[in-house]
Structure formats: C-alpha cells, structure tokens
C-alpha cells in the first residue's frame, strides 16, 4: 500500500457566475496510494464533490493535473488531458458512487437492467449467459438478493438503492472509486451495513477510495488518511488517527470539537466558530479562514498560507501551525 497511485497537482476548478469567478476547487495538490482510502471532509459547499468529480473527469478542470499510474508501466496518464479514446479506457478504471442513489438511477429500469447497463454500454460480454452470471455475481457481491432482480428502485429502501449504485460502479472492475457521501442519506443501522460492505470490497479487490463525507466519525472509521477542505482548499492532510489526536489547523480543531459525542462525561473545550463560511466567489488573497479564526493576525489577511509538512506526513496550511506545536 506504499506505492503512489494518483498524483494531483495544482488542481483548480472555477465556475463562471454572474457575480464573478467561483473558486470551487482552488489549487489543491496531494497523492493517493494504491489500495488506500483518502477521506475528504469539510462543510457544505467547500468543494468536496467538485474535487471528486474532477478526479475522475466527470467535470473538466480549469487547470492542474490528475495523474493516474499506468497499469503496465511506471508512467502516468493525466486524466484532465486524456483524449476521448483514452477516456473511454479510463472510464473502466475510475468510478463514482453518489449520495442519493435514487436521483441517479433510471426509475424505469429494473435492478437487473440497472446493473447490466454499464456492461452493455461498454460491450463487456457478447455472451448473454456470461452477462447473466456477471450481474448475478455483482448482486451477490453487494448483498442484493436474487429475488430483487425485477424490482424497481422506488420499491426499495435507501440502503438497497445504494447497493445498486455500488454494484454499478463495480461492474467494470475499476481500480479507483470516488464515494461521494455514500452513506449520508442512510440511517445508522443501514449506514453500518454499507460501510462494512465497502470495507470488505476494498479488502477483497484492493480498490483505492476517495471517501467524501461531512460525518467525521464515519470518515475516521473508513480512512487511512484524511484531507480537510475549507473553501476550495485543503487546509490539513494527515494520517487519520493523528488528525483526530493532534489537529494542527484551527479550522480542523473547531470542526472536531463540534462533533456531538454519544458519550457522557467527556470533558472537552468546544470551539464555537463565529459567522458562516464566506463566499467562494473571488475569494481574497489571504487565509480564507481568517474571518473566523481566533488566532488570526495581520499576515493572515494579506498572505495565503501554503500547505506545508509540519510533522512527518502531516500537512497543514496555517502561518502559525509551527508556533502552535511549540
């Protein structure tokens, strides 16, 4: 799991809006190892889904690179610049699962048809029987009973619909899957079932995951490393345990302190952030957290901090991260 598999360099995604350029993803760089789960957390609108979509080119990036390691040699292919022909091959290697499985499943297709669809579109099986076998085996893999073959999405509960979404994403034997809030619409019991499924699948097929969520305990549970986003940027990136035990960025600290814990008698200081997340449209050339940060000084309002390695493997973007450590 030590081998680098994806390298993201200075990735940007801007949207043109009436009020100016919206910096949804603004210059992020990181790497993902083979077989690893990278968690992506942050508040609504901070750019998690946009980043996830750019990674697998469901969205075209404004600039930057997403380098994916080739299967057969040591080279990389830049997904952001892949030709249509290259993209067709890449589509099999990279996949996405969405939060609300309902809104992205064609309501007129049965479970069987939904799972067969990616196989048909990509001409995977010429033989009908083989395809039947493959759909059955996919259903079994994600824990959908055979009797549900002819059911339609609206007849199923959220957990089962999410299983269909997962089966579809697995159909082409991908290597890399972006999971965009895959359990956020589910109740805790079903959530636990799906999290276990994703974990089992990763163990069996050594998938590489990017797991997007705003639920920090869920992200901690699934991730090897976690990236915290704020207003289009990664403000902290670390091994999962260290992020929770030793958060370095003031935003991460506030975020962690805000999680309601299902336990009594835990003593901790809650950092209540004043105000709301500022607008991502034409953000100032400064630390984007400065308006809410209790440590902000003049330099924070004039110079954006770069993401730096403060502890081994632990990166943060704050002018005073080092001082804080001392």
């Amino acid at each position, binding site marked *: 799991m030590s081998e680098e598999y994806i390298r993201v360099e200075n990735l940007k995604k801007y949207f043109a809006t009436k009020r100016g350029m919206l910096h949804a993803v603004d210059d992020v760089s990181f790497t993902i190892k083979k077989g690893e789960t990278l968690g992506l957390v942050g508040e*609504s609108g901070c750019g998690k889904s946009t980043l996830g979509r750019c990674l697998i080119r469901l969205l075209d990036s404004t600039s930057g690179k997403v380098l994916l390691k080739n299967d057969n040699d040591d080279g990389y292919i830049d997904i952001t610049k892949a030709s249509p022909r290259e993209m067709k091959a890449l589509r099999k290697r990279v996949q996405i699962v969405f939060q609300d499985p309902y809104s992205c499943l064609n309501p007129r297709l049965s479970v069987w048809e939904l799972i067969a669809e990616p196989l048909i579109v990509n001409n995977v099986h010429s033989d009908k029987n083989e395809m039947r076998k493959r759909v059955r085996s996919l259903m079994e893999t994600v824990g959908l009973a055979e009797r549900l073959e002819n059911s339609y999405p609206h007849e199923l509960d959220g957990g089962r619909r999410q299983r269909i979404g997962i089966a579809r994403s697995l159909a082409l034997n991908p290597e890399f899957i972006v999971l965009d809030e895959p359990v956020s619409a589910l109740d805790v019991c079903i959530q636990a079932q799906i999290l276990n499924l994703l974990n089992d699948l990763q163990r069996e097929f050594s998938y590489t995951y990017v797991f997007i969520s705003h639920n920090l305990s869920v992200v*901690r549970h699934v991730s090897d490393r976690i990236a915290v986003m704020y207003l289009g940027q990664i403000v902290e990136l670390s091994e999962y345990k260290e992020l*929770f035990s030793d958060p370095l960025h003031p935003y991460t600290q506030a975020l962690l302190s805000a999680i309601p814990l299902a336990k*009594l008698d835990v003593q901790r200081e*809650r950092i209540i952030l004043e105000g709301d997340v500022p607008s991502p449209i034409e953000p100032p050339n400064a630390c984007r957290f400065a308006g809410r940060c209790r440590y902000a000084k003049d330099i924070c309002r004039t110079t954006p901090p770069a993401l730096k390695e403060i502890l081994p493997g632990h990166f943060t973007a704050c002018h005073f991260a080092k001082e804080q450590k001392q």
Partner: protein
Amino acid sequence: MDNMLDIRNLTIHYEVESGTVHAVEGLNLTLGRGESLGFVGETGAGKTTTALGIMRLIPNPPGKIKSGEIIFDGENLLDKSEAEMRKIRGEKIAMIFQDPMTSLNPVMTVDKQIAEMISLHKKVTKSEALKLAGDMLELVGIRRERMHDYPHQFSGGMKQRVVIAIALACDPELLIADEPTTALDVTIQAQVLELMKELKQKFSASMILITHDLGIVAEICDKVAIMYAGRVVEYADKRSLYSHPIHPYTRGLFRSVPDIDEDVDELPVIPGLMPDPVNLPSGCAFHPRCSMATEECAKVRPEMQEAEPGHFAACPFCVKKFMNGEAL
C-alpha cells in the same frame, strides 16, 4: 415532578394505497415540566408523526389519530376544537421543523414574521411587536440591523435561528424540535445546539428534541425515548440509558455508530431492515432482527417494564436479565 405531557396509548394511522401504515401504534410517553426529552429512532419510526399528533397537525387524509390520549397541562388535546388548538399552537406548544423554509415565508422580512407570531398571541401594538421581534433576533445571535432581511438572504444556520426565534417568541411551555440541525453543517450545528442549550435555561421550557443522532441527545437532553416501528421501546434518564441500555434495539443502535476514538474493523450491525409499517411483525416488532428472539417474541407484544427506577424497556427477557444482574 408533575407531568406536563402524558401520552397514553396513542395510535396514528395513514391510509395509503397498499393498506394501513401503522405510523404510531400504542405509544406511551411522559414529559415532566422543564425537562428535555430526546426522541430517537430511525427514519419511519414515527417520530414526526408523534410530534404532528401532539400539535394536532396530522394531514387528514391520509392520516388519522385512531385512539389514545394526549394530556397536556391536565387536558386532553384530542378533545380540543380546531379554534382552541390554534391558540395552543405557538402560545403553549411550538414546533421547529427540520427544513427551516417550511416555517418561513419567503416573501416576508424576518422581523415581520416574528412580529406576526407575537401579535397573534399577545396584546401589543404593531411597533412593540416589531421591537420584540428585534430582541428575539438578537437573542438567537442575529444582529438587529439584519431584521429587515428576507429569509433567502440568510445562510441555513441563520434561517434555523430565525425559526427558533419565531418558536420562542411567545414563550411556549413546550418546544418540539424535529431534527432541527440535521440539515446543517457540524460547526453551524454546534452554534444552534449551543443556542438551544442557553435558551433552555433562560426560558425553562420543556422540550422534545427529535433526532437520530445519539450525540446530540447526550449533549442537551435529560431523558431519552427510543422509538422503533411506532412504539417507544426504551425510556430512561440519559445517564441510565447511555451507561446501560437494555433493549436489544437500543444496544444495537449504539454499537452501529462508528466511535470517534476507537478502531474497529467491522461495525457491529443490526441485521435486516426496518419492518414494513403496513405489515408490522406480530408480537415484538423487532423480533425478525433480534438475536435474542424466542418463539414467544413473535406471539406476545411486550409491554414496557421498569428495570430500575425510571428506566423502562419493552423487552421482558432483557429486563429480567438486567434485574438478575446478568450480562446483556
């Protein structure tokens, strides 16, 4: 402590194409004055229906309160006329919904919306009502200069704070909050929860907080009721419930939430799904998913039993084991 709210044997059904939805089925619940109760359960357990029942706001059709009593301040709300209920709503019982926009008028400035609520229930002049509205906004942390803004000019967290201001404007005795922070980000949720904690002390109102988040309950409630398939299956003060949950469903619920400072490979899960509310299982509705179920469980519907003072659970087997000091 005298009970401000006493729900007895409440049954609420919805008639739908596929049959009768048993949304609330023989529910019993009490709430003392000044207490706050966390009302916990998964989607479809019947939490919102119970709340709407108390407010007498069940959409009819398809919904109908079939039987039971809702005793509030010694009087059965189910005997009240619609005119009497209109007076009670807002003045004595206020409700906050998950989506703030269900309670806000998009084309009216927020100060007017709060003032309208105040004028409806208090004898004040228009300008007095507007002044009070500004006070309420300040109380929930919105600066007075923004009182003439429309809801869409506020962020999600601010809108929910406006809704709280409206709900508290008439100093209600009971506040029912239905997943008030579910749609909010954690840091904004923390702001709203902090506010609710503060206001709880200031107003000494009783509160029912509906949520599926056991963390939120731990933070602001005194009592907890766990609901499953239309019934309360466990009820206790927070300390007893969190330190030793008794009902198998409650225990499963606690285990299936990932822990923030502990690593587990595999999350313990409750097998299966919530039952179809049109065809609830016989006997104990949890029996198809319960690892401790016996034949008896499919036959007899278990009643709530007191396992220790103030701690009730609807599972005779676990209550007995608990009372015998056996491990659950």
